């Protein structure tokens, strides 16, 4: 009896072990940690589109949404790492320290942190997109199409990512039209349709005939449609929300990167690196141009897009001056990534001050 018990116990253990090994060898599981709800139709929504691409490529995925950038993030990460996930994508800047901390405890799990710069352990990689390249395209279109020479820009929070976008947009617009003025309104929110609409309305009432946005909801393009002015979509193609107003959108396209990295984990070729991809690598996508854009502008845009993709043109090519007229980037030089990552001053031609 005793012997029988031990034998069955051992055999079941062996059986269980084989099962586990088989499960581990068979599929790679990826987890995604989101700052907002997947229903925001903006930042988190686009990451979730990327996750679905990973799923479509045949991998198992899980996600946790609405995770605060606090000690909660550590708890969530630890739980995901403990429950058999091989790679974890943390998709907000504030997860930087929690990601590195938990990565130390789980050396066999790969961590991918979006928009950060800390890679303290060999199993942490970082990635971000050069959205400012897309904004250079928008600036070119806006500078060519404005009649009032006043361009409105609804911004979210005064951080380098947003200021870089404003600068890139303004520099490109000035290149095609030296008379333009960029009026900035800070909404201090990433998505609050009501507030964003009010900010856009204020800019339109003050004479802006093109509105750009660095907030996530579709309220701004809808207000532009009602008021009969032009606008640009953010994060995803917003054309269907305002078919007449939207000239084009800058789309965040994380899918290809996510699939590539999860495949690398599966093949055992994953390595630590810092990725900052732009139009050339397809992480930043320009939606179809609206038919109302005249052909001469269209060809200018296509050329710039090709040159940005090939690296022939950099969105921040000197001479670039700040608002006070101090030289930021010398003639013929381009801004390096360090300068771009910490950009906290407006270039010449942007109106107003950066709020503190």
């Amino acid at each position, binding site marked *: 009896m005793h012997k029988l018990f031990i034998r069955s116990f051992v055999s079941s253990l062996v059986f269980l072990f084989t099962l586990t090994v088989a499960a581990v060898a068979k599929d790679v599981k990826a987890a995604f940690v989101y700052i907002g709800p*997947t*229903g925001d139709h903006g930042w988190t929504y686009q990451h979730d589109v990327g996750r679905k691409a990973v799923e479509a490529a045949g991998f198992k995925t899980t996600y946790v949404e609405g995770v605060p950038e606090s000690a909660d993030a550590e708890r969530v990460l630890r739980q995901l790492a403990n429950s058999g996930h091989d790679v974890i994508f943390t998709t907000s800047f504030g997860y930087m320290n929690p990601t590195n901390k938990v990565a130390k405890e789980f050396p066999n799990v790969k961590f991918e942190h979006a928009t950060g710069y800390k890679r303290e352990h060999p199993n942490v990689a970082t990635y971000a997109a050069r959205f400012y390249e897309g904004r250079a395209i928008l600036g070119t279109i806006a500078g060519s199409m404005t009649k009032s020479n006043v361009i409105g820009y609804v911004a979210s929070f005064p951080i380098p990512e947003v200021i870089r976008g404003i600068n890139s947009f303004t520099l490109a617009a000035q290149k095609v039209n030296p008379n333009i003025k960029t009026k900035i309104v800070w909404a201090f929110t990433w998505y609050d349709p009501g507030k964003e609409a009010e900010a856009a*309305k*204020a800019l339109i009432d003050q004479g802006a005939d093109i509105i750009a946005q660095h907030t996530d*909801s579709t309220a701004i393009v*809808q207000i532009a449609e009602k008021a009969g002015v032009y606008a640009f979509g953010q994060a995803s193609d917003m054309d269907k929300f305002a078919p007449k107003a939207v000239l084009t959108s800058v789309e965040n396209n994380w899918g290809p990167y996510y699939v590539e990295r999860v495949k690398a984990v599966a093949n055992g070729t994953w390595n630590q690196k810092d990725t900052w991809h732009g139009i050339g690598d397809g992480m930043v996508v320009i939606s179809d141009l609206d038919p109302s854009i005249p052909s001469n502008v269209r060809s200018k845009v296509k050329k710039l897009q090709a040159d940005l993709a090939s690296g022939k043109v950099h969105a921040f090519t000197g001479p670039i001056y700040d608002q006070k007229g101090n030289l930021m980037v010398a003639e013929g030089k381009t801004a390096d990534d360090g300068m771009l990552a910490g950009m906290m001053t407006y270039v010449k031609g942007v109106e107003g001050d950066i*709020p503190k």
Partner: protein
Amino acid sequence: MIIDVNFVGLIIASIMASAVPLILASCGELITERSGVLNLGVEGMMIIGAISGFALMTVTGSLIIAVFGAMLAGVLISTIFAFLTQTLITNHVATGLALTIFGIGISAMIGKNFVGIPGKEFPIIFEGLKDTIPLLSPILFGHSIVFYFAFALPFITSYFLKKTKIGLIVRAVGDSPESASNQGINVKLVRYACILYGGAMCGLAGAYLSMIYTPQWIENMTGGRGWIALALVVFSTWNPIKILIGAMIFGGLTIIQFHMQAIGVRIPVQFLTALPYIVTIIVLVVISRDSRKIRLSTPSSLGKSFYKDN
């Protein structure tokens, strides 16, 4: 920049449009509170109204069904609150907070399939008269029917409370449920009705946001307006006409702030965002210094459960 009368008219019109959801929700909550019930679930009822209106508009294609459906959804969710606080005699504050959390959660769940769908255009009226009178035209004409209803509502509410018999009953129930009950008034029934009415108005306020103001569905799209509406009821010292003024001030702060930014005036944005709440606290401090004023304006039994009636 030239400031002309039409520009001022446009600003006032934007302020009024932003005040609409605040007026609707506050006037609804005011009736609820006047009957002695404190419902902190305004934000939750608004967000339920927002998703219900948007979902019904998308599914049925009918704006009328959507607007009334949103109000009905507000009524349904407030029925839960009424049942808990009136029949099961739970604590008003805790139940109201739970209602808000519940509303935000369930709206997100229903809303999953409605993200990224453009809304339908809501018809506006008197559009042809938009350029006839300087200054006044943009204020008076070219708005949705809900807009006009919202600006009539404080006056209707005021008339209802002061001049009608049912209004008197509501006030009596709120001030002294025991006396009202002794007079043969069914306190529970009156409070049920007032809670359900508050739910309908909050539902309409939410539908205004998702169907008219910014026609789309996004999670949490009410963005704390329910809390401002609650603050507004206190700010108004339970007077519907003052709600109108308060909603214009609260709604106007954001819009004036954006205009000042666009002109290039440097102002601390964070301070202006906090201003509605600061103003409410100041009003609370001012009225609480005068005990007679408190007794006259605050419904005496506000937030207290009533057991005796059956």
